[in-house]
């Protein structure tokens, strides 16, 4: 007898996507790939919020995801502008060669 999908399945999937994104942020050296991994982590968090909204019969999670997406869009615009600026100034966007603020 198959019942409908329990919320824990969605939560495990989103935790897995979040963890893989965190591995990417720590392991990769290319700033754009790190940025994409951060977007992936945001996607995992959004999945958790939507799951909670669905199973708790509330729409607050949906609105929260809406605002997360707004912030992600603004972040993408500013972050990519910073990458272009960095590349223009230093000719690379590998994060271990960008040590301007290192003492």
């Amino acid at each position, binding site marked *: 007898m198959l019942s409908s999908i329990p919320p824990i399945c969605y939560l495990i*999937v989103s935790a897995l996507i979040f*963890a893989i994104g965190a591995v990417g942020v*720590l392991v990769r050296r290319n700033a*754009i790939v790190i940025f994409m991994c951060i977007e992936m982590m945001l996607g995992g968090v959004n999945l958790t919020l939507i799951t*909670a909204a*669905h199973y708790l019969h509330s729409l607050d999670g949906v609105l929260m995801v809406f605002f997360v997406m*707004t*912030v992600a869009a*603004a972040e993408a615009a500013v972050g*990519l502008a910073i990458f272009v600026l960095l590349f223009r100034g230093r000719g690379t966007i590998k994060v271990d060669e960008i040590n301007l603020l290192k003492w």
Partner: protein
Amino acid sequence: MIAGSVFQWIAFVLTALTAIFAAVMVVTRRSPIHSAMFLVLNFICIAILYLLLNSQFIAIVQVMIYAGAIMMLVIFVIMLLSVEEEEEKKRIICSSPAKVIGILLVLILFALLIYGVGVQVLPGEGGEYTPERIAQIGEIKAVAGLLFTKFLFPFEVASILLLVGIIGAVILSKKER
């Protein structure tokens, strides 16, 4: 009812596995363009999971904003910067002690997350928006109603944030003279 449930399970398992596969590929591909393409696949799979969770509005917005707008911007910047093929010879995962330690820390984080969601699944009281009620008034109408009443202030702040983001991007990428 049983057929619908079986369909839901099949769709869930397929999309979840594809999403996780795409996430792993994003991290392990060497070329940033390939990573970006797998990230689009990941976003589309997550949008399908949103549809299974009965929130069509967010699914459409996810495809439009993430898979459309943001990834278009990212791919545009990758091509603009003509990023060199980096990390050619070295393995991406486990090539230095720091990376191994990082992966171990993330494994601990993942175990904590699983423990956190497993020990008590979604505590809290149910709200008033049951699926029947949402189907009755329409999902987009319900979301819009909340957006312009309960969440009016965050909505205005988000609009100011977007404006500041646009101005910041223009000022940052303007050529100095």
